């Protein structure tokens, strides 16, 4: 197992290389020109050309690539083409809000969704089941911003319990963090709750008919421990996967929610960078997410072996 973990961690390197190459190619294939956004509307072609030279955008592709890779190996993520700030500083500022909110969201989602799904499976085709399904349908098909606006309207504007927008770091003011992170987290959580609850239900239904559930009943266990200790654990692998990939998605940043609640996270950073073709920022962001994904996925994979001892790699 230890060997496996080490092998997986080492695999970060090829993953990064694939991602780097891929991203680099995609970016250079996409039309758009950071020089143009730098210079604004009334720049002349000659001026643009000079800026492009200056930014190194006129070098041959492979040279740009190797230069970038070389810098990466020296731990230098480069400088934003647009704002001229070091990319590491920019990401450093932006990653924490996203991470913190992602963790809160996943925590809330799991807390709410798993019992919901278990209940729905337990009371298959009862009103609980249908209620969970209706909630999930809404969670899937109502755009996030609508949920966000509704929360804001109710909790921030009508009731004035929580602020409308913004972000406070938990290290700075824990209460402030929760006040500002609660609405966005719940907003994000709706879709995850929907997804996780459905998955839990689906997975539990498979398990509840198994003989060992009957054995557990024969032992006189309470329904709760039958469901959560015996059945849920057997159903947990796909649920864990959904939670894991959900978390991975969240740490990549979720643009719409970040916009609605004005959270300075990496989601907006990435989209802004893509729209401005700020290559170093995009490249660094994607590499970072790739790295995080490798890590999260490794954790998911390890969790499988803990949940289900029959799973071996």
């Amino acid at each position: 197992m230890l060997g496996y973990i080490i092998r997986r961690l080492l695999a970060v390197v090829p993953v990064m290389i694939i991602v780097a190459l891929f991203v680099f190619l995609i970016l250079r294939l996409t039309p758009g020109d950071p020089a143009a956004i730098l210079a604004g509307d009334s720049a002349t072609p000659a001026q643009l050309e000079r800026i492009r030279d200056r930014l190194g955008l006129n070098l041959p592709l492979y040279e740009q690539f190797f230069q970038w890779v070389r810098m990466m190996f020296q731990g230098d993520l480069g400088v934003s083409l647009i704002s001229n700030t070091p990319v590491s500083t920019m990401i450093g500022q932006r990653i924490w809000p996203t991470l913190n909110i992602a963790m809160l969201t996943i925590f809330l989602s799991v807390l709410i969704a798993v019992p919901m799904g278990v209940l729905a499976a337990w009371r298959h085709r009862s009103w609980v089941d249908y209620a969970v399904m209706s909630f999930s349908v809404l969670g899937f098909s109502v755009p996030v911003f609508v949920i966000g606006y509704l929360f804001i309207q109710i909790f921030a504007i009508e009731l004035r319990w929580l602020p409308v927008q913004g972000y406070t770091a938990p290290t700075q003011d824990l209460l402030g963090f929760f006040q500002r992170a609660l609405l966005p987290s719940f907003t994000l959580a709706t879709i995850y709750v929907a997804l996780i609850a459905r998955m839990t239900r689906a997975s539990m239904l498979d398990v509840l008919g198994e003989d060992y559930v009957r054995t557990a009943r024969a032992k006189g266990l309470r329904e709760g421990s039958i469901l959560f200790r015996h059945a849920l654990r057997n159903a947990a692998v796909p649920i864990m996967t959904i939670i894991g990939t959900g978390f991975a998605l969240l740490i990549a940043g979720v643009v719409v929610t970040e916009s609605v609640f004005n959270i300075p996270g990496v989601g907006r950073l990435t989209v802004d960078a893509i729209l401005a073709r700020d290559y170093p920022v995009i490249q660094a962001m994607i590499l970072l997410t790739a790295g995080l994904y490798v890590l999260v996925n490794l954790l998911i994979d390890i969790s499988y072996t803990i949940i289900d001892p029959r799973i071996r790699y």
Partner: protein
Amino acid sequence: MAHATQPSAAMQTVLGMLSLPRQWRLGAGPMVAAVVLFLIVLSALLAPLYVPYDPMQMGSLNRLQPASAEHLLGTDQYGRDLFSRIMTGGRVSLLIGVGAALFSVVVGMMIGLVSGFFRAADAVIMRIMDSLMAIPAILLAIALVALSGPSVWSVIVAITIPEVPRVVRLVRSVVLGAREEPYVEAAIALGSSMPKILWQHLMPNTVPAMIVQGTYICASAILTEAILSFLGAGVSTDIPTWGNIMAEGRTYFQVKPGLIFWTGAILSLCILSINLLGDAARDMLDPRLKKREA
């Protein structure tokens, strides 16, 4: 939906006439769902025949009208008839939603089965998936459009590619457990080929998860399409799609909530039906559940 029971009965007879095996006949709930879905698809397909206005016809003096006899659901910010737009919008949206869900599930399923079953392939495939997962859909969409021009298909592909690794992970996770089941060993002992074991023994285990994930992808693709359109990487924003109507309606959320409400309602109805059908399908696939029916 009050009148939906009648066509349901009719459908029952039709199915009866087709003399489908009994286990393929649906209960009342799924039956209604099937009919509703059928009606939605049909009304989207036939929209050009019956909608009162050209869904792209603007009237600058007609902006954001409330519902009236003239405009059943009012008009949008360009003075276009909302009813006509919503009904027509289903065409592109359903294509994208269903297309993206189908593609990602099918592709993800194949890769996931192989990856989950063969330890040797797993390491390589999953690392490629990890890499794919990191590419943002937006970027992909912009690049794809640049390469092949804007079209519904590039939207579907752009949405599908980042979705595939997640499906793969899910399928693989189910397979990792299922491959240890004795009946898989039994199949090996009976000389079943790998494709057969993957497809016939292991795949059905993934169906419940795939139904959940598939409906989710379907819905989220319909909504994501709007985001891509707004980056110019999708279908043109004046072509109505449910995603576009809602995304454009975002600004008018408080001024004219109908833009989002009605579109959201029909989308929800659609997803609800798909969900009900999915549940029915999974129950059909699981003999133990079928028996547990009340």
